[in-house]
C-alpha cells in the first residue's frame, strides 16, 4: 500500500466491520492469547470449523481469533455474540455442545459458563472480574486481532497520530499531556508531560533530530504488547512528534519472549507498510522509524539507564542521575524512556483530551492503571481499574475474595522489589502517593494476595534473595547490603536469630534505600522495612521463641497432633508423603518426629484443626 493519507485512514475505519457482528446468526470471539493458545484454542477453532461445516452453519457463524482477553486462569475461553456470553475452560466436546445448544437452540450451555461457586453468570459484562474494570488502555482486549492493523484503525487507531501530526503543534501536545496529569506507568510515576518537555528543550538546535524514543517493554508490559501493540507504536510516534526525535526502539528485555517480539515486529512492519512510520508521515515532513531491540534478560535492565547501557551493547549497569536520559541518554543524545502502558495512554489523551482523561482516577493520580492480580484470591488475571480504587475493592470485587475463605494477611505490591501492605491498610487507594505512604511502590503493578499461611519473615527473605541475585554489583550499598540482609534473614529463619537483629536489619535497609545508585537498591529494602513495620511480632517469635507460627520455616517448626481434637479420620496419614503419621481408625494419630519432613501437608489436609504448629524441637508454644 502506498503512503496512507488522512482520507485513507477514515476510509479504513468506515468500511471496518466489528467482528462481533460479522456472523448473521452468531459471532464467536475466540481468545488466541498466549495462555489460551498453549491450552489448545487453535484446536477449538478447528473443531468449530469442522462442526459448523457439517451442520451447514459456516456461512452464518463467524469465528474470530482475538488477542488475550485477560482472564487467563479460565482459559481457553470465548465470548459469543449477540449477548456477549462468556464460555470458559473449553474442550472440543464443549464446542459441539455450544453449537448444538447455544447456536442452534438458543439456550446457554451452562456447563462452561462462568460460575461463582453458587450460580453461573452468562454475560461477559456481568462477571465481577470484568464489571468493576474500566477499560481504556485495554479497550480492545478480546475484541480485536492484535496482528491486524485494520482492527486497530477501526477502533479509532492512529487518528491521534493524524491529529498530532497534522493539526497539533508539538508544544500543544506537551501541554495537553501536562494538563492530563499522566504519570509514568513504569512504577516511578514521573509526570510524562514534564519528561517530554525536558527532552524537547534538550539538544542544541531546535531542529536537532538526534533524539530517541524508547519503549521499556519488560515482562510487565507483556499484556499490552499482547493485546494492542499498535497503541504502543502510535504513542511512541506521538512522543517523537512532540520531542523532535527521529528514531525509536522497543526494548524487549527477554529475548525468549518470542511471542511478544514477533507481535511487535509484525506491528511495526505493518505500520511501516501503511506509511504510519517512515518518512513524510501523512504527507508532512515528519519522519519517524522504530526498531524492535531485544536485551538479554536480567531485571536490572528495566531500569532506564541500565536499559540504555544494554542497548549500547554493554553490561546493563545503571548510571547516576542526573543527567537524566531526557537530557543525555542513548549515545549521549536526549532520550525518552517510557513504559509501554504510558505510551498506550497517550493516543487516548490526544484524541479525547485532558479532561476526559481526568474523569477517572484521583487529582494527583488520574486515569487508569493496569495491575496483575494473583495469589490467594479466587480470580487471577490482568485488570485495569481507575487509580484510587481501594485495594480492598480489588481483592473483594475483582478478585472475588479469598480462596477457600482464608484470611488475608498481606498484599505484596510493586513486583519483586515492592513492599507489603497488611490487612489493616486494605482501604489504601491504589494511587502512586498512597501506596508509597503505606511503604510499598506501584512498581510493576503486580499485586500478590497472601493468606494467613504466609510467613512474612520467610517472604522477606525471598525478596532479599531476589534483590541479592539481581543486584548488578555496581554500587556497594546494594551489592553488599542486600547480601547482608539476606544472610541475617536466613539466620533468623533457621533459628540463629539474636535479640537486636531486627534493629540491625532496619538500619541496613534504611541505609541501602538511602544510598543506592538506582531504583533496585532504593526499593528492594522495602520488603524488609514493611514486614518489620507491620509484622514485627512475627520476627520476634522467630528470634525469641524460635517459633515460626505458620510452619513455613522448617527449622523453627514441629508439627503435632492434638489428641483431644483428632477424630482419627486417617486423612492426614493417607496424605503424608513419608508415612510419618500412624494411628488406628477413630483413634488419635501421632506424628513420628524423626521421619517428619515438615511439608505442612497434614496441616493443610486436616479439617478438624487438630494439627498444631509448635516451635523448634522442644515444642513449647502452640498456634
Amino acid at each position, binding site marked *: 500500500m502506498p503512503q496512507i493519507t488522512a482520507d485513507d485512514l477514515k476510509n479504513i475505519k468506515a468500511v471496518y466491520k466489528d467482528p462481533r457482528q460479522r456472523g448473521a446468526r452468531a459471532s464467536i470471539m475466540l481468545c488466541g492469547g498466549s*495462555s489460551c493458545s*498453549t491450552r489448545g484454542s487453535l484446536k477449538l477453532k478447528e473443531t468449530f470449523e469442522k462442526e459448523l461445516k457439517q451442520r451447514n452453519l459456516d456461512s452464518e457463524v463467524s469465528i474470530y481469533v482475538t488477542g488475550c482477553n485477560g482472564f487467563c486462569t479460565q482459559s481457553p475461553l470465548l465470548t459469543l455474540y449477540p449477548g456477549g456470553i462468556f464460555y470458559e475452560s473449553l474442550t472440543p466436546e464443549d464446542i459441539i455442545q455450544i453449537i448444538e445448544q447455544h447456536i442452534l437452540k438458543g439456550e446457554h450451555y451452562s456447563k462452561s459458563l462462568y460460575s461463582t461457586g453458587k450460580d453461573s453468570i452468562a454475560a461477559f459484562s456481568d462477571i465481577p472480574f470484568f464489571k468493576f474494570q474500566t477499560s481504556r488502555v485495554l479497550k480492545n482486549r478480546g475484541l480485536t486481532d492484535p496482528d491486524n492493523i485494520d482492527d486497530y484503525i477501526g477502533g479509532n487507531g492512529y487518528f491521534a497520530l493524524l491529529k498530532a501530526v497534522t493539526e497539533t503543534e508539538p508544544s500543544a501536545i506537551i501541554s495537553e499531556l501536562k494538563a492530563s496529569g499522566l504519570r509514568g506507568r513504569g512504577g516511578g510515576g514521573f509526570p510524562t508531560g514534564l519528561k517530554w518537555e525536558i527532552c524537547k528543550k534538550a539538544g542544541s538546535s531546535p531542529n536537532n533530530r538526534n533524539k530517541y524514543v524508547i519503549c521499556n517493554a519488560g515482562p510487565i508490559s507483556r499484556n499490552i504488547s499482547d493485546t494492542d501493540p499498535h497503541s504502543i507504536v502510535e504513542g511512541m510516534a506521538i512522543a517523537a512528534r512532540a520531542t523532535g526525535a527521529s528514531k525509536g526502539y522497543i526494548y524487549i528485555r527477554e529475548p*525468549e519472549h518470542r511471542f511478544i517480539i514477533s507481535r511487535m515486529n509484525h506491528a511495526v512492519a505493518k505500520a511501516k507498510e501503511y506509511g504510519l512510520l517512515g518518512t513524510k508521515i501523512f504527507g508532512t515532513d515528519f519522519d519517524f522509524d522504530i526498531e524492535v531491540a531485544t536485551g*538479554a*534478560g536480567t531485571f536490572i535492565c528495566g531500569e532506564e539507564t541500565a536499559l540504555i547501557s544494554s542497548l*549500547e*551493547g554493554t553490561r546493563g549497569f545503571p548510571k547516576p542521575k542526573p543527567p537524566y536520559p531526557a537530557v543525555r541518554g542513548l549515545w549521549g543524545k536526549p532520550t525518552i524512556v517510557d513504559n509501554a502502558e504510558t505510551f498506550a495512554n497517550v493516543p487516548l489523551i490526544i484524541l479525547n483530551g485532558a479532561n476526559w482523561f481526568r474523569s477517572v482516577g484521583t487529582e494527583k493520580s488520574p486515569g487508569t492503571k493496569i495491575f496483575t492480580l494473583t495469589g490467594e484470591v479466587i480470580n*487471577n488475571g490482568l485488570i485495569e481499574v481507575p487509580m484510587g480504587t481501594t485495594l480492598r475493592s480489588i481483592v473483594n470485587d475483582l478478585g472475588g475474595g479469598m480462596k477457600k475463605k482464608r484470611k488475608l494477611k498481606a498484599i505484596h505490591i510493586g513486583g*519483586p522489589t515492592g513492599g507489603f501492605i497488611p490487612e489493616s491498610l486494605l482501604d489504601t487507594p491504589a494511587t502512586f502517593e498512597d501506596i508509597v505512604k503505606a511503604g510499598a511502590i506501584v512498581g510493576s503493578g503486580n499485586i*500478590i494476595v497472601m493468606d494467613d499461611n504466609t510467613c512474612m519473615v520467610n517472604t522477606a527473605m525471598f525478596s532479599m534473595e531476589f534483590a541479592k541475585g539481581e543486584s548488578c554489583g555496581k554500587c556497594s550499598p546494594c551489592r553488599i547490603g542486600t547480601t547482608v540482609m539476606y544472610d541475617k534473614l536466613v539466620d533468623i529463619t533457621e533459628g540463629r536469630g539474636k535479640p537486636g537483629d531486627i534493629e540491625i536489619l532496619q538500619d541496613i535497609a534504611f541505609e541501602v534505600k538511602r544510598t543506592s545508585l538506582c531504583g533496585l537498591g532504593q526499593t528492594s529494602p522495602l520488603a524488609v522495612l514493611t514486614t518489620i513495620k507491620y509484622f514485627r511480632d512475627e520476627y520476634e517469635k522467630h528470634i525469641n521463641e524460635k517459633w515460626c507460627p505458620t510452619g513455613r520455616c522448617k527449622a523453627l517448626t514441629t508439627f503435632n497432633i492434638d489428641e483431644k481434637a483428632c477424630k482419627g479420620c486417617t486423612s492426614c496419614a493417607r496424605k503424608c508423603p513419608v508415612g510419618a503419621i500412624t494411628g488406628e481408625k477413630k483413634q488419635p494419630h501421632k506424628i513420628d518426629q524423626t521421619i517428619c519432613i515438615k511439608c505442612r501437608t497434614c496441616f493443610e489436609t486436616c479439617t478438624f484443626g487438630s494439627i498444631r504448629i509448635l516451635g523448634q524441637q522442644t515444642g513449647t508454644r502452640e498456634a
Partner: protein
Amino acid sequence: MKGKILVVDDDNIIIRSCKGVLEPMGYDVSGTINPREALELIRDNDYDLLITDMIMPGIDGFELIKRTKELKPDTTVIAMTGYSIKETIKDTLEYGIMDYLQKPFSPNILADTVDRVTNLARKLKSQLAITEEDDVDGTHKIEAVNALIKQYKTVPGSLITVLSKTQEIIGYLPPAIQRLIAKGLRIPVSEVHSVVSFYPCYTMKVRGRHNIRVCIGAACYAKKADSIVQKLCNHLHFDEDNVTDDKKFSYELVRCLGACASAPVIEVDHDTHGTVDPDKITEILKDYN
C-alpha cells in the same frame, strides 16, 4: 561406584596407599607392579582412569600410556613422577595425560586430583559426544556466525544482538565462539566475556534439546514454584549443569516471565504454560520429544 581405576607402579607401597585412599571414596581400584601385566589388564577391562608411574623397568610410563591409548583411547591418564613437573609437561601433553601427581604426594592431594580428573573427563566426554554428533553441520553453523558478524560489524552496540543470534544458532556460547565474535566485532575478548557472564540469558554450557524455564519470580514463588522444581528434579535426572543424561531436557530458573496472572508459570522451549500443577508436570513434558 565412582569409577574403575588401575594403578601401575613398581613400588607396591604406592599401590597399597592409593587403594587405601581411593577405595573408601567409592572407587574400584586395582593395581600391578608389572607394566606388561598392566597392558593385559587394560585390554581385558574397561578402566576409567589409569594412574601410572613414569619410570619403570621394562616398559616405561610413556610407552605404557601410548599403548593404552591404542587399546582404549577413552582411558583417562594421571602420571606420577618424581621429577619436577615442568620438565615433562610438554612431552606428556602429546600423550594425552590429564594431570600429574608429583611424588611424594599426600592422601588429600591424591583424592582431590582423582576426583577432579574423573569429573572433568566425564564432562569432556559428554561434550565430545555432542560435538561429534553435530559435526555434520558444525562448519555450517560457524559460517552462519561469520555471516552474522559481517552483517553487524559496522553497527554500533550490536554485541548483544550478535550474541543472542549466535546462541540461537549454536545453542550456547563456548569460549572459542566468544573469541571469534570479539575478533570479528573488534571488541576485546574480556568485554565480550563480561557481557556474556552478566546476562542470564547467555549460557556457556550445552543445553538440552528442550529447555524448561521455571519461573521463580515473586508471584510464582508465592504459588509454590519451588515444588515444581522439586517434582521436575524427581522426575528427570539432571546433572550438575541441569541437563539430563540423554540431553533431551535441561532446566533453568528464571525471574518473572511476565505472565504473573497465571502463576505458577513454566516455559518449555517457547510455549508458556500457566497455572501449572506440580503433579502434572510429566504430562506437560510428554508433548516434547
